[in-house]
């Protein structure tokens, strides 16, 4: 392995930021200091340098839905976006609800080798909401985050049992907090835009009633609870109140909920169709504030690839979700305005901590693992292409500020200037 120098960036370390070079050797950080020399030097002047980004919420669609994305193409998109670890959701076919399926996903990730691919496990068998998934098997192969994402764990009694079962060990229940009764038939935020379009809406209360109910169960069980893709001002307020009480609660926001509100849906272009939906301007602004003030712990991309032909239909028939790994950092930088410390906290340190992911989300330190990324926070650019299999992105053709400059995974450069370097298999 050659020694690589990340030169001239502003490095975020445990003792603050400093202008320094980083020398990477044998998968680790060998030196941090001025004017270092190595076999290859990558100019990081003007860039923030910190731990590789960690996504607690992506969909790589493998196994079973490979026409949308697979672990190879998903890993390439992640590396291009500055990520070194990605937790992938279990709503594959088959559902990741047992140990051998989780092991398969992790093994495929290792074979590709561009990022750590860490499976999340289902809370219930087949995500059917009826009986607990094989939680012990999943735990044994390293699963720490459990989610029926795509569907809410709607049965409060079943959720309570999952929480009781996982609480002592510190497993995290990651909830897709959308009430079925309030969202049934809905395709966008319930409000002025849905009224004008004559479309069934999903009220903000659909998220809030689940979060409110679940927080009461957290109080009862002491289990760790994470709200996925927070979308409402009411949700932000409830999370703040729960944290003030000292409950073991964390929350995530997706880049698209920071960038857009429901007015983006007015033209019925399915690229703006998400679950939860893009909500009101007030909700969007509350999410931005919540991310800045720390009420919202992390950014989770909810990278949700779909094939182009699946989008060539009217809004109501189109699937939910957008891809986002390649542009998440730029979108957050453009719309939420975090400083370097908060940027790496929300996109790397906190997600690794919540997901209990070893060797990730660690501020650069000599002897530590070389999972690193450099981000140029000032460059203005417009994404025109993607390395994902899918193209369902509202960011293609949109002006953004900030771009990942280089990604280093386990000491190997995996992406430069938003382009992944190695193909994987």
């Amino acid at each position: 392995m050659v020694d690589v120098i990340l030169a001239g960036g502003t490095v975020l370390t445990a003792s603050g930021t400093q202008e320094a070079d980083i020398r990477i050797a044998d998968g680790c950080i060998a030196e941090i200091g001025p004017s270092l020399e190595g076999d290859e030097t990558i100019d990081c002047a003007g860039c923030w340098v910190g731990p590789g980004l960690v996504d607690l919420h992506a969909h790589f669609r493998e196994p079973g839905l490979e026409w949308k994305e697979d672990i190879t193409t998903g890993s390439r998109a992640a590396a291009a976006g500055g990520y070194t670890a990605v937790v992938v959701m279990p709503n594959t076919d088959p559902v990741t609800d047992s140990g051998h399926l989780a092991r398969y996903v992790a093994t495929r990730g290792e074979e590709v080798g561009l990022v750590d691919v860490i499976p999340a496990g289902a809370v219930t068998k087949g995500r059917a909401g009826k009986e607990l998934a094989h939680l012990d098997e999943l735990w044994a192969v390293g699963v720490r985050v459990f989610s029926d994402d795509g569907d809410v764990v709607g049965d409060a009694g079943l959720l309570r049992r999952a929480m009781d079962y996982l609480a002592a060990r510190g497993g995290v229940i990651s909830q897709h907090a959308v009430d079925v009764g309030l969202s049934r038939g809905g395709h966008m935020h319930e409000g002025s835009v849905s009224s004008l379009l004559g479309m069934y809406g999903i009220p903000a209360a659909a998220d809030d009633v689940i979060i409110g109910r679940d927080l009461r169960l957290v109080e009862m069980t002491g289990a760790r609870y994470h709200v996925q893709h927070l979308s409402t001002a009411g949700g932000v307020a409830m999370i703040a109140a729960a944290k003030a009480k000292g409950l073991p609660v964390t929350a995530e926001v997706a880049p698209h909920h920071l960038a857009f509100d429901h007015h983006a849906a007015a033209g019925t272009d399915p690229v703006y169709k998400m679950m939860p939906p893009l909500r009101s301007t007030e909700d969007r602004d509350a999410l931005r504030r919540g991310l800045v003030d720390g009420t919202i712990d992390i950014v989770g991309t909810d990278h949700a690839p779909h094939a182009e032909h699946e989008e060539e239909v009217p809004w109501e028939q189109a699937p939910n979700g957008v891809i986002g790994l390649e542009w998440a950092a730029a979108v957050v930088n453009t719309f939420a305005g975090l400083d370097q410390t908060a940027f790496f906290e929300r996109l790397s340190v906190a997600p690794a901590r919540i997901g209990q992911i070893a060797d990730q989300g660690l501020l650069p330190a000599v002897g530590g693992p070389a999972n690193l990324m450099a981000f140029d926070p000032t460059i203005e650019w417009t994404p025109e292409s993607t390395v994902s299999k899918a193209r369902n992105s509202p960011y293609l053709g949109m002006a953004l500020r900030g771009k990942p400059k280089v990604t280093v995974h386990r000491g190997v450069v995996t992406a430069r200037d938003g382009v992944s370097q190695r193909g994987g298999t």
Partner: protein
Amino acid sequence: MNHFLTIEGLSKEDLDGLLDDADEFVEVLHRPIPKVPALRGKTVATMFFEASTRTKMSFEKAAKALSADTMSFSPGTSSLSKGESLKDTVLTIKAMGTDAMVVRHQSTGAPWRIAEWIDQPVLNGGDGAHQHPTQALLDSLTIRQHFGSLDGLKIGIVGDIRHSRVARSDAQAFSALGADVTMVAPRTLLPVDPSVFPAEVSENLDDVLGGLDVVYVLRVQAERGGASVFPSLPEYTARYGVTKERFARLNPDAIVLHPGPMNRGVEIEGAVADDPRALILDQVFNGVAVRMAVLFRLLGGEHDG
């Protein structure tokens, strides 16, 4: 005008211009040979992804009265049931040689999507509960014929507004033409945010009935089923049905309209529907004329009458 998709954003001048054209086609339709050669050689495809009888036949009659050829599509007999994407379906029909497409679709926005995919005029024949712009034109024409103008008229749109593309287009058209519009329905049948429409809102028909010049009665869309939006049909009729008793309390010059198909005995009593002041068949006749006006505007050259 490249497409005709929505009433939203059209001005009084835009609407009056189309209605003036429609008046001329009304005259054509009264001739012994109700046909002009304006669109000879053009082909209009009626793409009705959602079942429809009157709108589809009305568009076909309008196209034929302009001497256009027509092709039709209905979902029951199509490859949609074989899983073809909407885009592939549309490009396939276009490749057979169409000049314009009339689109009816159960999903909001579908005509806009199609307009992105083909480089020829798209006419919205009704999308979801969103827009039905030619219905708004024919309703406006019927009211204008009767009163001379919509300016200052009080129009009540009564019934299932939430699920009605007719109500949305009508409220926008009537208001743009100078009428004062009130939407009358229980809250479960109103848009969640009615403030986006240029209309007052009332949950009590009897409060507003006496002041109306036009009662526009919407169909109770029993076929939508699923969501329970009022307790029972008799309870709906008791509060919102246009019964003989309510008809008798109307201003003596007031008229009644209905977009059809009617549920007699539910939202409108049979005797009211058959009264000379119910202009329901005039609406149907005018539908052909306004659709001729729109087709001619999109596909025709100079209007030579």
